[in-house]
């Protein structure tokens, strides 16, 4: 009897990508796809994987976990994918991760940061390339105390993501001896932040830590600027997405943020030739420099291909084991590895300032990296993670 194997029909390695092509994360999603596409093109030009060409099948999950589940099932059942990568929105990452476990398909979360993907709801099939929220708060926590002061005010969005960021900072604040002079949770989608910001002005902290994202962050910064807060109090946050800052007016491009990668900094790329080549090829191709999102996509596709090559198979268990614990040279200084205890990629995180105008004749160049923290220092210790995350590989 003829039984077609997964992806064997056209003798291709098929990788599915689930991304937030429509909705508020359209831009980060597009950059992740560009990174993946570039990696796949380079792999195919170099002869493919296991002498087979790699095909990337991209689906729009519409920034909705229900749709993400449907699209993951479609990719698995109809396109017969060998592995799935992608997602920006944390809820989509977790939902997709769960579907892939049921279908025993390796899944690499490119850009959803919620701790649970490599924490309480980790699976042997799931990996994550971007940093966890824990890593973001800890990396920036050290740098903020170091560079800006120890009197903090928290402003967080009132939903799961905001709460988990807040938990992260509360853990680090004890280690650093920080005084917290105020804490506010603003509902998601708040349009007017001035009420919160006047409270901050009166509390006079050294640093206002803003955990809002996307539209909320933009509204908050524009209003902080018009209140004159930015001249009085330093603002900082766990994650500065350059896609957001490019779309802000110059006077609101301010503050100190956690950076997950940056294309123009010796602290990030150092003398790494692979990084220099990547930046040049990417910029020539897309007429825009790569962002952290592009790197998530690129590194994910590249490492997945490397794992399939190493496993000499597309079997989920073999690929997962090949990916897990393998050290590699990324697009930054120093090496990286998907940690075997929870499948989180351990790599450095950076910290720096945003400026209004591009520097050095490059309008895109609006970040100034001032500090970096090693990945293993800022992620939960492996021993602690063992108690939370049970991978349960099949026997």
């Amino acid at each position: 009897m003829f039984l077609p194997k997964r992806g064997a029909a056209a003798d291709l390695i098929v990788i599915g990508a689930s991304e937030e092509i429509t909705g508020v994360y359209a831009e980060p999603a597009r950059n992740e796809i560009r990174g993946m596409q570039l990696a796949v093109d380079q792999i195919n030009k170099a002869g493919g994987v296991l002498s087979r060409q790699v095909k990337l099948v991209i689906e729009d999950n519409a920034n909705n976990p229900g749709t993400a589940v449907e699209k993951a099932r479609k990719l698995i059942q109809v396109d017969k994918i060998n592995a799935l990568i992608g997602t920006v929105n944390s809820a989509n990452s977790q939902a997709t991760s769960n579907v892939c476990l049921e279908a025993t398909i390796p899944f690499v979360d490119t850009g959803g940061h919620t701790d649970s993907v490599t924490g309480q709801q980790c699976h042997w099939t799931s990996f994550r390339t971007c940093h966890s929220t824990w890593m973001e708060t800890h990396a920036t926590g050290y740098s903020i105390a170091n560079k800006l002061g120890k009197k903090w005010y928290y402003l967080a969005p009132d939903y799961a993501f905001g709460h988990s960021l807040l938990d992260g900072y509360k853990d680090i604040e004890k280690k650093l001896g920080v005084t917290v002079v105020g804490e506010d949770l603003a509902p998601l989608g708040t349009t007017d932040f001035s009420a919160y910001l006047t409270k901050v002005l009166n509390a006079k902290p050294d640093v206002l830590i803003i955990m809002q994202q996307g539209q909320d962050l933009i509204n908050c910064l524009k209003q902080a600027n018009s209140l004159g807060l930015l001249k009085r109090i330093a603002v900082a946050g766990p994650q500065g997405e350059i896609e957001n800052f490019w779309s802000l007016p110059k006077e609101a491009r301010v503050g100190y943020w956690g950076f997950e990668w940056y294309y123009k900094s010796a602290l990030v790329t150092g003398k790494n030739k692979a990084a220099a080549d990547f930046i040049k090829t990417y910029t020539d191709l897309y007429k825009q420099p790569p962002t952290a999102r592009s790197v998530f996509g690129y590194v994910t596709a590249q490492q997945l291909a490397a794992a399939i090559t190493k496993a000499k198979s597309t079997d989920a268990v073999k690929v997962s084991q090949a990916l897990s614990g393998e050290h590699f040279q990324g697009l930054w200084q120093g090496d990286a590895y998907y940690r075997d205890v929870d499948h989180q990629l351990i790599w450095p995180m950076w910290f720096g300032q945003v400026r209004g105008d591009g520097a050095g004749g490059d309008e895109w160049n609006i970040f100034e990296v001032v500090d970096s923290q090693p990945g293993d220092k800022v992620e939960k210790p492996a021993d602690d993670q063992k108690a939370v995350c049970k991978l349960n590989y099949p026997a």
Partner: protein
Amino acid sequence: MIEHLAPEIVNGIVLGAFYAIIAIGLSLIMNLTGTINLAHGSFMTLAGYLAFTLMSRGSNFWFALAASAICTAIIGLVVERLLISPLYKRVPLYSLLLTFGLSLVFEEVFRLIWGPSTVPFSAPPELSGATQIGDVFLPTYRLFIMVALVVVMVALLVFLYRTRLGLRLRGAVQDAEMLAALGTNTQLLYMTNFGLGILLAAIAGVLAAGLLGLGPTMGNDLLMPAFITVVIGGMGSLAGSIVGGLLVGLAISITTLYLPAASEVIMYVLMAVVLLIRPRGLFGEEGIFG
């Protein structure tokens, strides 16, 4: 906590004035033609984007504000003549569905032209900065918004109560058929009225863009509070829209101080309470919608 109340009240008034101006536009259109204009927010966003485009081509803020408001009102008139006016004789559900569809179309068109994320729109330098009076920080841009909205409201009231056209508009709200029988071109009145509503939305849209991120959904995010303002103030009453707007703005700001988690839900609670006590809204006239 009481010492923080003063700045919150100022914030609340500015926010309220903002909701009021949007609500007045909605209310004007609703009163005369029974059209519940769900595309109102889209016209706000459109005006914001037009102003952004003009400014990125070198125009100053003031010219951009005026030109984009007028262009948006003209686009509004075209939409009214071609799409909405044929539905005036039908029940409001038809125009409701049409404007809802329009708002979806607008949003996608904005995405196609200006991209899915926000564009960098900033208030002019002469309006940036803030003044501190005691514990109260007053951003210049917010003060400007408040003044601008007061000017717009006064101009509107003068127009409605001191001009012939305004008189006819008010007459048409009471009895359009009789007015037509007396020889007034009511279609022209409907058009003027719609254009006026959109002009107000457009001004609010450009002002909002300096305060919020200008993205495809900016106007629609402001539409719900504006509808609630209309309901609280009472359908058919301009004074109601103003008072309703201020109530909503103050309620949101003061709740933010004491119970941030409830700051988004407070306006719905306020609406429910008002409707329980006074089903037609604070200043509403009875039977405006049958």
